[in-house]
């Protein structure tokens, strides 16, 4: 139902560097869980509308006025690496 290659693919999509042992365990767990989810196929839902959220609120608007934002220092305080008042990350574009 879900093979090892798919698990590796999904882990890449989810940005999770799983070890080989974790991939084995994950495949077994997902296999077991998805098998239990086969129950969902027992119902004919072709005429049923999906529910994304249960309380019917229309698009919520509020007055277009500015409010004081959090201070720059407060927001940056949690960043692991800050340089010249900006968050520093490793290279986004590499040569290969």
């Amino acid at each position, binding site marked *: 139902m879900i093979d090892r290659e798919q698990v590796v693919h999904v882990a890449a999509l989810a940005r999770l560097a799983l070890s080989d042992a974790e991939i084995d365990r994950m495949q077994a767990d997902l296999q*077991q869980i998805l098998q239990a989810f086969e129950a969902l196929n027992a119902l004919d839902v072709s005429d*049923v509308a999906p529910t994304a959220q249960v309380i019917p609120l229309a698009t919520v608007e509020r007055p277009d006025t500015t409010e004081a934002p959090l201070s720059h220092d407060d927001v940056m305080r949690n960043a692991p690496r800050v340089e010249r008042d900006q968050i520093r990350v490793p*290279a986004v574009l590499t040569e290969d």
Partner: protein
Amino acid sequence: MSDDLFRLTVTEASSALEAGDISSVDLTGSVLDRIDAVDARTGAFLLVTADAAIDQAREADARRKTGDANPLLGIPLAIKDVLCTDGVATTCASRILEGFVPPYDATVVARLKAAGAVLVGKTNMDEFAMGSSNENSGYHPVRNPWDLSRVPGGSSGGSAAAVAADECLAALGSDTGGSVRQPAALCGCVGLKPTYGRVSRFGLVAFASSLDQVGPLAKSVRDAAVLLSAISGHDSRDATSLPEPVPDYAAMLDGSVEGLRIGVAPEYFGEGIDAGVSAAVREAIGVLETNGAELREITLPHTEYALPVYYVIAPSEASANLARYNGVKYGLSDPQAVDVDEMMATVRARGFGAEVKRRIMLGTFALSSGYYDAYYLRAQKIRTLIKQDFDTAFESVDVIAAPTSPTTAFDLGGRTADPLAMYRADVLTLPASLAGLAAVSVPCGFVDGLPVGLQLIAPPLHEARLLRAADAYERLRPAWPAPRQAVEA
């Protein structure tokens, strides 16, 4: 007043404070001493903010002298560590948020502070609120105050254990699929999940956005009502927040169930439900009937689908919500990584625990190309059928009564090897969550010395009806004991 101030309910403490019999500094000191004495056994707290609590207590005592009589003024409360607290570390019990100190308060926290409540600390939980036993905490497990070899339930296990062991007068938790009600049932306290949209989620770390709600855990239904009034109401910072006015829920508790139509569905008493739990809950329902409620058999035919529906929808939403933890803006990072992709993948692999990884994988799979229709869309359609079951039922009944949890508290380690067995702990709380309903768990008896919870479910925004029924039951039930033996051994 005795030395045991920590044993008081919110309502009792509030009266004593207002009468001038005790001060908030005394009360808060008593609660902090209690935490010192028993928390090594329960593991309910991740962080105790003793100095700040005493400062807040002094401030509350000063405010009372000016005539302020808010029912939460000077009352020591605990906050589940999934709610942001300004200047106080917030971890979601995850290593990936180690060191994160929010620069703002969640709206519910701000509202409690404005009411003058004293916040004694942050409670332990399953990592990112994913779990039913609190064993998924990235720090340490919580033990059930009634039997330290058993789980407190989850994911608000720390809040439930803290309330049951008198380490706070009441607490906030969050409930996505049962995370307030199920631990409340297993620890013998009251736990309320408000209607989806009743309480602001601004500053609640998101797990599954179409399901998450903040709710109180308390020693009595009246206390839960007081907390609900304090935290409810519209918040312009949460687009799913409902605009309806907030009543004084505690003032509406009149102790009557005369003429209340209670629905009982066979689907909640079937296979997999412990016989002792069923019997205790049926007995509680009988007490309500004897006192004027009318029982009606109803049917909720899609109940059995709630578990797979939930475990497709919630992990799918979680896989998107948890994408933000990547070592860039806060928390765990990896300065040695050569490129940003490597950093994100290694930080996430190191920072997330096994169950969080499992749910991210499950959700990512369910949303991925080629599987979306078969899993996520199909689950959303069956969610519609589950909601319609309740809509139909509520045409003929006012509330639905059922067990909260299929079993009493299970052994620590008893289900950790089998994810599906753990998921089944939520089987009776998931349907009301998927339908966005209000639901409460109230202690209704014991099986082999372990508490059983009666779950009552009401239509959206009928918290007053729900609390009135739960409070009436509480008055009819024998006085609830405190779990002294295990925690004070």
